[in-house]
């Protein structure tokens, strides 16, 4: 009997990795824009808002199927704050991949580091990412992790309908331009999630205490068996401020009917109708 239960517990155990990026807090950015004093890496930092949905989905799946949720981040030392947030939400483990050679990484370099870390974590069933990061906004990193690991990929997932750990299959609904697609996939699979999928929880008191005490392990490229050459960025980004807006708004006054008439004239003249 004990053999059977052991076997059952094995097949219902899920190893989930959630990809969490630390990004600038855009809510704080507006103030910093005054006087055009904006620095790309200064300012308050948060968990990429999309990734909170990824963390939540990992936790929901864990309570349904049992297993472990590990939050994984490539970032600078201060990115351990983002991972502590993940711990406060309830993930079991968090790992920071940090290395000077990754600091100017493009999505592929980041994906290579993430893929190597996932290999090191071991037999992973499901990787959950956000739809995109609010600073990079490539919607590429998680896709590239799937490519590098040869895992299946389901992007823009709005609902996980079910996971069958015995047959290693899952079914999910994706929101794509053409509509809603129900699709099945073999595990291991990488999914990226959109906002509709859940509502991220607030950390509870116990987990906040746990997060405060947590020491987040840091893996370097060497720990991952990667050389700096393997994470050489293939593209370079150089940042500039956008041209200032010179045009002034033209305010239209009058009663609703009067203003509507003037505005419609103007828009017709602009030939946008």
């Amino acid at each position, binding site marked *: 009997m004990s053999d059977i239960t052991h076997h059952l517990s094995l097949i219902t155990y899920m190893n989930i990795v959630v990809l969490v990026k630390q990004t*600038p807090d*855009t809510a704080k*950015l*507006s103030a910093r*824009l005054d006087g055009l004093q*904006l620095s*790309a890496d200064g300012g308050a930092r948060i968990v990429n808002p*999309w990734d909170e949905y990824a963390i939540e989905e990992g936790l929901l799946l864990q309570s349904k199927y049992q297993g472990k949720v590990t939050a994984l981040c490539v970032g600078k030392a201060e990115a351990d704050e983002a991972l502590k947030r993940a711990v406060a939400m309830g993930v079991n483990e968090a790992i920071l991949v940090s290395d000077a050679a990754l600091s100017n990484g*493009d*999505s*592929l370099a980041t994906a290579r580091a993430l893929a190597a870390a996932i290999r090191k974590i071991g037999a992973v069933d499901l990787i959950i990412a956000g739809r995109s990061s*609010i*600073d990079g*906004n*490539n*919607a*590429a990193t998680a*896709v*590239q992790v799937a*490519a*590098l690991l040869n895992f*299946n*990929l*389901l*992007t823009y997932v709005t609902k996980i309908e079910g996971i069958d750990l015995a047959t290693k299959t899952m*079914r999910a609904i994706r*929101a*794509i*331009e*053409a*509509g*809603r*697609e*129900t*699709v*099945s*996939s073999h595990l291991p699979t990488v999914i990226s999630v959109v*906002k509709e999928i859940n509502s991220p929880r607030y950390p509870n008191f116990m987990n906040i205490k746990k997060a405060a005490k947590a020491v987040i392990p840091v893996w370097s490229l060497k720990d991952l068996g990667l050389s700096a050459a393997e994470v050489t960025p*293939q*593209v*370079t*980004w*150089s*940042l500039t*401020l*956008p041209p200032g*807006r010179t045009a002034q*708004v*033209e*305010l239209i006054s009058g009663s*609703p*009917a009067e*203003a*509507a008439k003037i*505005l*419609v004239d103007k*828009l*017709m003249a602009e030939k*946008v*109708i």
Partner: protein
Amino acid sequence: MNVFIWIEQHHGAANTASWEALGAARQLANELGGQLVALIFGDKVADLATQAIQHGADKAIVADDPTLQAFRLQPYAALLVQLLQSHAPHAVIFSASNTGLELSAYVAAKLGVGLAADCIGMAVESGKMMMTRPALVGNLVATVTFNGAAPHLISLRPRVFPMPTTDSSRNGEISAVQVKLSEADITTKIERMEEAAINEVSLTDARIIVSGGRGLGGPENFPLVKALADTLGGALGASRAVVDAGWIPYKHQVGQTGKTVQPDLYIACGISGAIQHLAGMKTSKIIVAINKDPEAPIFKYARYGIVGDVNQYVPALTAEFKQRLGQ
């Protein structure tokens, strides 16, 4: 230095953004002194090859097979990787639709090459491609250059590049390519597809968007915004505040955590213009704002503004447009 363009299709029709991207790719091929080759994957899509040539491609390569009917990453990526390896183009252009973003990123990783996603500008300076794209929620502009080996993969934001003109007298070579994977090799299956309503204008493709925010006062007033959108044949947008409040479904959300849109006309009704909302719409060609607060940040980005109550001014606008458009 040849340029490849991947044409995205749905039920055998190419999406408009793919033709826009083809127009930009044509220019790039001219500047690089190479040929433009269109790649068409699907089921019974031979027609699209002729269309691609009429839109400006020199050649087309077609993979026609039932396994390619709807987009699935596995068979599409396998084909694309093989074609890029055997033809070694300098650049490959995609439209930055959900599918284009996904396929380009995946193939870039498989080939270990650079990717510039969601670009809004493209130039060649002394043989080097310089791509521009918004960064950090539109607060900065990034110029992206490629350091590594070709092919360089690029996706272009829809509705930014002009639609190319067609020339029905253009001729080009059309060749066929065999699929790489059979159905048995493919480990994802599409079980069901609930198509988006035919008469619903999608936000990303819309020429005109009318959006509503918390200033409407309540969900019962959202039909005012919808009536204006319908009158103009436009799409319906919303701020996150009203999506979160449950006034309207998430698919209408514009902004940093919603859709990025670029219509010719964006009418913001009762929307304050928070930085995260602006991130999704501030590059619209003409922005009109209706807001009772003259200090609302949206007015800094608007071409025309009305300071007043949306619940009065929006219906007045709808009525005026109806009359002018003879509805």
